[in-house]
């Protein structure tokens, strides 16, 4: 319990409540071979990101060196160690979307939001990401805001779409 309180002191996002869920995830998966990645996936679902303090905690609970956990987290693009914005905009950088002009959409979003790809706006309203093919090539070019997929976007329509998200 003391360890949990320490974590909250180190990182305010790791409240006792959040850590109770993290513990539940670890207990459920502990002992299964190869459980590290599913544990990290679920934990990111709870905390939204994977801060260093959490990685060390997960490593110690699973008896995996912190360096190994860090190695895995930094290898896979699905994991993030920095907090994200309230909404995530993903522009699809698949070939079909690229051929159909997602590059121009991305440029316009970057200049409008004043962020680079992978960055979060200062007000933490949006995180802009470029993702590899979403497999929705029939709708190209595609942009996903949170979980809603928008097909056939243009630089103008993309700006209109994100206006709706506060």
């Amino acid at each position, binding site marked *: 319990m003391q360890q949990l309180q320490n974590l909250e002191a180190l990182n305010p996002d790791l409240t006792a409540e959040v850590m109770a869920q993290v513990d539940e995830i670890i207990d459920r998966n502990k002992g299964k*071979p*190869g*459980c*590290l*990645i*599913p544990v*990290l*996936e679920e934990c990111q679902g709870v905390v939204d990101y994977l801060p260093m303090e959490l990685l060390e905690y997960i490593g110690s609970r699973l008896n995996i060196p912190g360096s*190994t956990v860090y*190695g*895995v987290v930094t*290898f*896979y*693009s*699905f*994991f993030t160690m920095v907090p994200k914005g309230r909404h995530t905009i993903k522009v699809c*950088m*698949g*070939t*079909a979307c*690229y*051929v*159909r*002009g997602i590059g*121009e959409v991305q*440029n*316009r979003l970057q*200049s409008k939001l004043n962020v680079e790809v992978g960055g979060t706006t200062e007000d933490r309203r949006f995180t802009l990401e470029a*993702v*590899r*093919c*979403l*497999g*929705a*090539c*029939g709708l*190209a070019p595609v942009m996903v805001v949170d979980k809603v997929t928008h097909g056939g976007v243009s*630089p*103008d329509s993309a700006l209109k779409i994100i206006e709706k998200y506060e």
Partner: protein
Amino acid sequence: MSENNSKAEEKTEEIAEEKVEEKEQEKQKEEKVIPYLEDVPFFGFQKLIVLKNKGIDPELIDEYIAQDGYQAAAKALLEMTQEEIIAEMKTSGLRGRGGAGFPTGLKWEFANKSEGDIKYVLCNADEGDPGAFMDRSVLEADPHAILEGMIIAAKAVGAHQGYIYCRAEYPLAIKRLNIAISQATEYGLLGNDIFGSGFDFHLEIYQGAGAFVCGEETALMHSIEGKRGMPRPRPPFPAHQGLWKKPTVLNNVETYANVPQIILNGGKWYAGIGTETSKGTKVFALTGTVKNIGLVEVPMGTTLRTIIFDIGGGVPKKKKFKAVQLGGPSGGCISEAFIDTPVDYESIAKVGAIMGSGGMIVMDNQTCMVDMARFFMDFVQDESCGKCTPCREGTRRMLQILEKITRGEGESGDIETLEELSEVIKDAALCGLGQTGPNPVLSTLQYFRDEYEAHIFEKRCPAKRCPALLEFEVDEEKCIKCGICFKQCPTEAITWEKKQPAHIDKEKCIKCMTCITNCPSDAIF
């Protein structure tokens, strides 16, 4: 009088009747007859084996069973020996649909003969090639076919545990696979003593975490083991030492979806479709600048022309076909001169591309081939896991050169350096990602060398896609004074008045390409 009258009336009636008849005939001519499915080119040229269950409710196992589902599994488990299943697969001539095209029956035989009490069956659903969505569709629309294929594979090699490695970008596929697995378990089609045959098989889904290289078999297995998904040298091959160092069979989604039909209809039936060396059908994800976008399943040996122009309906009006890209970042672009190439593993390789997993992207004359090569090299460089030097450093150098060329800073000798690096990376890289990574550059150099030369020596981008090589000026002779560019310019850099050619203020212009993309008369250069 009255007689005459009546005759006249009769005549007019006759005339009237004739007119009505004529009108009806005309109407019938006007009313289009609804054609049969096979008379519509989009469907007529296709042959459905993998996609045959399109339209069933994928969340209801009963619908799959109604389409002869799980009959092949029953046949394999109750009536066939391991050797018979493998022999049937070898007769069918089915080759891995993930891209490399290794004979499936042979792979199963190796794993079957490999010694070990524990073996694994894996499904590679980490479809990462940009522009490919065949596996996603099968996973989402017909998940039970994959389960059934895996049950048969498990019996053939003697495995009792299987994993489906599905990428995290496909949440619906994961959801439907989970539903399918729980329904199949409920029906006794997965778990212990399937069909009362005494054969056990358990299946789990493993969610990937976003790394393209995990589509490589040894990297995929490292990922399931909870490690960084980096490939290792082979041999030992997975059939001898795979997941957790146990004999393992790994096949692609589409490969498994073929298996039940082969067992049900016989290997000979399957071998009757396709060409001498490539049997059966292949699903392609047809996208890009083509009228009919979507999945098409055609017998091996169908020409690219049939797929793109008959099934795909050709490129939309006002655009011109330029090239077709096959095989994603491991493949290549095929120019119009080779459009009559039949799709089979060998013929496609001969013209510089690969069959790959099935992405087929049609490009028009607005696509810059140098920029395309840069795009794919950016992808490969970004997804390179960093384990082997040729891939890690070589792709980075190649990307730098390509970026330099698209920026208009290309120098004489760059093309030769690209070619030399390509050969070294192909020979020396550890896994398929690096070994095939230079293909997009090599194939565009093969067919569109003039575009590279235009970029380097004339500082000109023929397709008008590289902003650094464009003037952003209006050709007043070509300009049709329509004002479309003026209306769409995001920075108000364009001035235009009715019946006057447009003018671009270069200080305000951010080179966003909107005007060039939308100009109907190709007047901006």
